[in-house]
């Protein structure tokens, strides 16, 4: 989990340099990513997720698609916080 969290945080750090309003990472796992209370535009969100997908698949050698029907149908969006995204990725990676 920590490794995945590290990957996500690293991608957001790099990505933040390209944003007018960077994602605030002060709250660690609880840092808000996308949804209520987030300043992230949907187009930037999609771009960030693509970067994270790339980073995860480079590290674990497995192609994954994070924004799919399954993610959309979760009771709680996996994209709420940095921590919930890490958990969601962890779940997908454990599956096979």
């Amino acid at each position, binding site marked *: 989990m920590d490794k995945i969290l590290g990957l996500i945080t690293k991608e957001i750090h790099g990505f933040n340099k390209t944003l007018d309003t960077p994602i605030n990472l002060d709250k660690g796992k609880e840092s808000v990513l996308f949804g209520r209370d987030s300043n992230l535009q949907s187009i930037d*969100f999609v771009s960030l997720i693509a970067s994270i997908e790339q980073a995860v698949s480079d590290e674990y050698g497995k192609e994954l698609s994070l924004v799919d029907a399954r993610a959309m149908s979760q009771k709680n969006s996996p994209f709420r916080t940095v921590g919930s995204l890490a958990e969601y990725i962890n779940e997908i990676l454990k599956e096979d």
Partner: protein
Amino acid sequence: MYIDFFLDRFRAKPNQEAMIWQDKIYTYGEFLAYVENDVATLRQKISGGKVVGLEADFSPRAVSLLLALIGLNCIIVPLTANLGEKRKEYKETARVEIVISVKDDDTYTIQETGKKNSYELIDQLRHKNHPGLIIFTSGSTGKGKAAVHDFLPLLEKFKTERKPSRMIAFLLFDHISGINTALYAFAGKCLLTVKTRSADAVCQAIERYKVNILPVSPSFLNLILLSESYKKYDMSSLKLVTYGTEPMLKSSLLRFCEIFPNVKIRQMYGLSETGIICAKSKSSDSLWIKIGGEDIKTRVMDGLLEIKTNTVMLGYLNAPSPFTEDGWFKTEDEVLVDGEYYRILGRRSEMINVGGQKVFPVEVESVIQEMEGVEDVSVSGEANQMLGNVVKARVKLTANETASDFKNRMRTFCKGKLEAYKIPQKVELVDHLMIGERLKKMRR
């Protein structure tokens, strides 16, 4: 014969140069002998109205055979070797009845295929005793569409004799612009053929033979800029560069104008279906063009360009009609309009719909191409659950950089130059140039 006006010209100016092939100059006098010979030989074996595949590239024999087949009212299907596997598919689709193959030593063979072509469009030409031309659209996706032309309207403009100048036969012989180039050899211009269509070979030929006109594809202009071959050779003879067949990157055009301030750069507008149409660029460094002239009408419907002209094809052999009920040809090119000027944005089929917003690959490529360390870039769409589609850039870099680092650098660079939704959300690094066999950008 419908080619008599060419032959009269040959007789009147036997010493004028028509072609330089493998370092030898061929004059109109020599061409007259070639064509008369070929007409006499072919007449014994091929009757008018036959559908003839001409497997050849630019050579004296190839262009002579082209002329002879027009003279005999045949329907010609030009096919070059670089079609590879597609050549067989095209011959099947066009129901080629006879194949003429021109060999490397410029001799040729004739072979009957045993097939019979009885397409309605072909029969129309036969009834009128008109020569025809079948050109395949080099669609990047799916099967090539076979566009059938009546050859007579296409010959019309060559009745005017042009000022002598040397022109490189760069565009492919089986492309509508290649056939256009070939016929220019008989309208006063001298055609110079090159063995390979590499940037270096072309620039070298320009120096060696003092070439004046270079008709190319925008992708090839990029190759010339990237290879810097123009620095190795004396390019001062060059007067005019024409480009067409795909949209030009604004950044490349400006760069080219800067390097060649004395060269006129002209955009052409032509499709396999319409023939080459006169266009006039607003200026050398402008992407805005005025299309048309007396016999060409244009209009824009739903953002797409439609054309009415006498050089338009009769129809496709293997695809639904692209004509409107009132006879306009639907180009499928998305355009912007400014008074009487158009700017071609790209094929609607290549347009990427990102959350309801339109993105054209060429606009994005043009910005990314300006970045430090980018050698080549190709942009396409990729399905996405959230936005319908996202923009994906495949990039070849000159130095080592991770995809993630490059992507962040690219996002910063593109900010303010492109709307947010146009900045590629996905980036893939590749290790090859993305220019295909047909010297056009590959986007899939």
